[in-house]
């Protein structure tokens, strides 16, 4: 555990906690698989904590955290070299370089999503929330509802579009 002054550690913990959502979005954008992204986020958090002595509180936290998250993404790809990666290296570099994740925008998006979910018809709200439950899958939902996976996927897509439209209305822009 780093030996740092109390306020330095306190500040770092607060920053890590505050940036969990935006770090999650950043990592998921590069590793679009929920489980893998969760693992990378966990590793990133641990490395951020271990590198506390490198953190300069006078500088923005997010670029430093994203750089560490980026290395963790690459490390995870190396560790799982035999796995199929969604994005090839060139595209991954591009996506990382163009990322403009922002903690305020992410927080606003989370709040807007909550409101928009409340506005959905109950069966649609239930369906999209069901999809995002852990261990849920389109195939399992299809089996339960006696529909084809393609039909379920299409319905989910329409619900996401409704949510996007609602969020744009609330934020006055795209959910970014």
């Amino acid at each position, binding site marked *: *555990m780093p030996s740092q002054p*109390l306020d330095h*550690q*306190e500040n770092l*913990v607060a920053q*890590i*906690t505050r940036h*969990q*959502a935006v770090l*999650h*979005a950043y990592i*998921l*954008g590069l590793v*679009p698989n929920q*489980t*893998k992204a*969760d*693992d990378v*986020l*966990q590793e990133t*958090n*641990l490395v951020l*904590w271990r590198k506390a002595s490198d953190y300069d509180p006078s500088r923005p936290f997010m670029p430093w955290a994203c750089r560490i998250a980026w290395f963790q993404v690459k490390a995870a790809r190396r*560790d*799982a*070299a*035999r*796995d*199929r990666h*969604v*994005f*090839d290296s*060139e*595209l991954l570099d*591009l*996506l990382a370089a*163009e*990322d403009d994740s922002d903690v305020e925008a*992410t927080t606003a998006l*989370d709040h807007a*999503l909550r409101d928009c*979910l409340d506005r959905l018809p109950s069966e649609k709200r239930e369906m*999209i*929330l069901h*999809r*995002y*439950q*852990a*261990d849920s*899958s*389109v*195939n399992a939902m299809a089996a339960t509802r006696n529909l084809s996976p393609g039909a379920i996927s299409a319905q*989910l897509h329409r619900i*996401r*579009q409704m*949510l*996007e439209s609602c*969020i744009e209305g609330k934020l006055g822009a*795209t*959910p970014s």
Partner: protein
Amino acid sequence: MNSDYDPSRLDLLLQHLFDESIYDSQVAELNAILLVSPRSRGHYRKSLRLHAALIRHRQTETSVQTPPPSPPARWRRVAPRLAIAACLLLAALYHWIPNQKPLASLTGTTAAIWAGASATADLDHPMDLVAGFAEVTYQNGVRVILEGPCRFAVTSPMSMSVTHGRATVKVPHPVTGFHLDTPAGRMTDLGTEFGIAVGSGVEGPVVLTEVFNGEIEIPGETTARKRLYGGDSLAIVREGGGTKLLSALGEYRVNLGDSARRLPPSNSSPETGNLARGKPVTSSAHYSMPHGSVFPPATLTDGRLNDSGSPGDWSFWLAPNGENGEFTVDLLDAREIGRIDLQNTRNRTHGDRGMREIRIMTSTDGSRFEELLHTELPWIPELPPPGVDFPFESLRFPPVNARYVKVVGISHYSHPERSKENTNHGGGLNEIRIFAP
């Protein structure tokens, strides 16, 4: 419509991506589209952020509204990520608030020898347990038994890093999600008791793992994660940038049945006055196979007993297949000796190796040897419980002056139920101790 931006097609691909039903051909198409089209990448980011927000919403809902007393499977998967900030806060608070209970405590040791300063309540920095056993108990009741040599650190209320050596974990109901981080990846508990032996081969880390009860998740070979269930055992081998999962190393099935699952009682044999301890040992050959299955003669005088250790760092010497084996201890000075203690091996849980009939010879110059003894070592039929020493054969003789002590195998033990055609046998020995009269 811009020729490289087709929102409908992109939406369809993203729909399959987010629903984890995307085909390889569609992945390739998505890569091609995103690579050439900044507008498509913007579209991707926008959709992805909603997808990410929905994942976070689910996690928040789960944690805030329904933290179940007995976590179901869905909670187990999301808990680690949500818990991390809390873990960090707890870890930090432990240092800030005097008298705050530590994340985990050292709750017992048996014959423990620590490198440097002795163990303290601060287990959150790397600890080197050189020998013996230690029990670490977390505040949530998770109990880890560590066997030296072992290097470990408590990294959070729900994790430990083990970079070398053996550990067994028992996670009480209803705790789940506890994990061990090793150089070969993360072992995540899903409600269970399991053991690991962290070591290395020539090319990289080798971690043996066995589930005693319940189930765990380990790094996968072709998938990100793989589940192991009670009775399963595998070696996780990192080499060439990838992960290999092997059920056997060489001819031997992975087996951690000899791991300590509770803190053993103290029962170590005294070795006061052992002239051989740490002295160089030479042998014409030793058993050596990939992935850390290496058993060099230096282990004969290292003070480590009972077929313990981990890949690349086993405590016993084995002769190559089919050979009785021989080795020579150099005491560095000619000494008067009157007793030799030998601890045989049974090759851990496998019970198929060990010296039987032996000759012991001595020399003062390393070239002219005279026979001192001709005897037979007993077989170790049953694996003693962890912490209980394998028997020593103590050989006393009239004092002789010797610098070199050579042990020559004439025959060896092999597994009683294996056919004679099976070449998987040979001599071996765990430890030699040499004493003055």
